[in-house]
């Protein structure tokens, strides 16, 4: 059974079609990168996967069960979402924000604190633990939100999990980008499927087992990073000329902007 399975899914949250005929499959432990120009439907795809918008046609099954058939609580135990923007303006401490990620779990204080310690180190936020969230910098806030969604699905509780990340590294410095990438990879190894929307193609190339390119609400290309990230794709979808090389150490595709 695959973690996520979409068959000919259409979605039209605002009257017009924003996604058409989406075919997608993701296994537990797999990392999927989503790329595409502004307004192509990347975030809509993520909202579709998270259940925020419902399919108007086709089938979307999460763990073999139609997405609409899930109750909120059980779904929150297997599915966590990092939104692009977070508008929290109440003075929670960092620790309180991260522990909100444990809301769907009835795992008890001790185990929640254990998870807290682990995600604090996975996002390098331990030093911020007692700070007020609203007084943090943009990059710090992003790491705290990441820690919150990590905390939600950190533990393997007998079922595969799915993590949806909408541009998770936009505000992060290089060191923290690498840390988050390592943490996400580590999480995937424990059986968590990950979907990352990103404009950083080299990050996608390094992280993803599978890449999809979205354009005009449709998936125009799907496959391994090597097969999707091509000069042709960049010209057709993004309208730019790039050079595709190979990373000298990792061997992943390397996209060089001109």
């Amino acid at each position, binding site marked *: 059974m695959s973690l996520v399975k979409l068959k000919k899914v259409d979605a039209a949250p605002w009257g017009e079609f924003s996604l058409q005929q989406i075919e997608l499959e993701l296994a537990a432990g797999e990392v999927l990168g989503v790329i595409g120009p502004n307004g192509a439907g990347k975030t809509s795809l993520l909202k579709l996967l*998270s*259940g*925020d918008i419902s399919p108007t046609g086709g089938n979307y099954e999460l763990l073999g069960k139609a997405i609409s058939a899930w109750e*909120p*609580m*059980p*779904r*929150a*135990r297997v*599915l*966590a*979402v990092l*939104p692009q923007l*977070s*508008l*929290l*303006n*109440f*003075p*929670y*401490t960092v*620790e*309180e*924000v991260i522990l*909100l*990620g444990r*809301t*769907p779990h009835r795992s008890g204080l001790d185990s929640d604190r254990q998870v807290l310690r682990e995600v604090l180190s996975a996002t390098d936020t331990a030093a911020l633990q*007692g700070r*007020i*969230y*609203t*007084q943090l910098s943009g990059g710090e806030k992003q790491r705290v939100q990441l820690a919150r969604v990590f905390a*939600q699905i950190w533990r393997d509780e007998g079922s595969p999990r799915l993590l949806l990340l909408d541009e998770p590294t936009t505000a992060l410095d290089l060191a923290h980008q690498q840390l988050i990438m390592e943490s996400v990879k580590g999480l995937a190894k424990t059986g968590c499927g990950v979907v990352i929307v990103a404009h950083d193609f080299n990050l996608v190339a390094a992280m993803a087992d599978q890449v999809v390119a979205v354009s005009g609400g449709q998936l125009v290309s799907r496959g391994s990073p090597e097969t999707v990230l091509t000069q042709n794709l960049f010209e057709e979808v993004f309208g730019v000329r790039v050079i595709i090389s190979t990373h000298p150490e990792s061997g992943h595709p390397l996209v060089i902007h001109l």
Partner: protein
Amino acid sequence: MNRDLQGRQVILVLALALPVVILLGLGNGAVPLSAAETMGGLWHYLSGDGSSQAAIIVGQLRLPRILLAAVVGAILASSGAAMQGLFRNPLADPSLIGVTAGASLGASLMIVMSGSVVFGYAGLTLISIGAFVGGLLSVLLVYSLASSPNGTSVATMLLAGIAITALAGGLGNLLEFLADNEILRQISLWRMGGLDGADYPRLVIAGLVCGAMMLALPQFATALNALLLGESEARHLGINVARVKIGLIVCVAIGVGTAVALAGTIAFVGLIVPHMVRMLTGPDHRRLLPASALAGSCLLVLADTAARLVLAPTELPVGVVTALIGVPFFISLLRRRHHYGMQ
């Protein structure tokens, strides 16, 4: 962790302060009583011997009024905390969903219609019923204006609440314009909010509603905590957002409707108290809701005591006192808000 402890301490201190404040209110007024006289009067009244002067003053005049103040204060402040959480807006106040304006209009209508026919107790009861029904009807209107097949938008609710408040205010003004002097004075006195109509039947009604609220609201504490992150974030954390919205709005509409019906419009308690409490406990609603209820009780009992004392033997409407004391205090909070991380 520290905040958890601090929150519990705040709740404990407030819970200890409330009986003290109530005793203070019982002892002070047009006829000052010493602590011993107050306690003695209260003891006599409660043990069924209500014939002494102190027992009459304490038991029949002050006790129902002060307890009503405590109950109404708890309802208004906890409703304010819940609304600020639901709207994710620290400036939200229970009147935002139109309940206060609707209740005001309902009461004005009743005063105009019954003013010349029904007097005294029956009139007061009719006005209360009018206020309660008016409050609920306007919340219903605001809620349905903000609801669509896609769900209920709190942003639209806020705007619809402002619109309905303005509409009810306009209609109320029209009534006042057409009313004669005696009725005009009745309407404006009612609007200022007062607890002078307090008696035991009213206290029982308010107490029951308050009790039900104190049981119901904490059920929403975790959901409100998650909602501060945003609606879709709360949904992703497993919260049934639509159900929480309806539950909270019903709670607040009934609670504030009752409070306004029995004590008129009392300004600022629902806005200021949650603010003050949040500075001490942080935004976690598991602590914020009970602490706000207790702080609201204390504050309104104190304000009412002040209202009875300042111009004694004349009693000021308590709404005037809360506004006059509350607003300068609130402004000083606003100027220091960055100290506690409020944007």
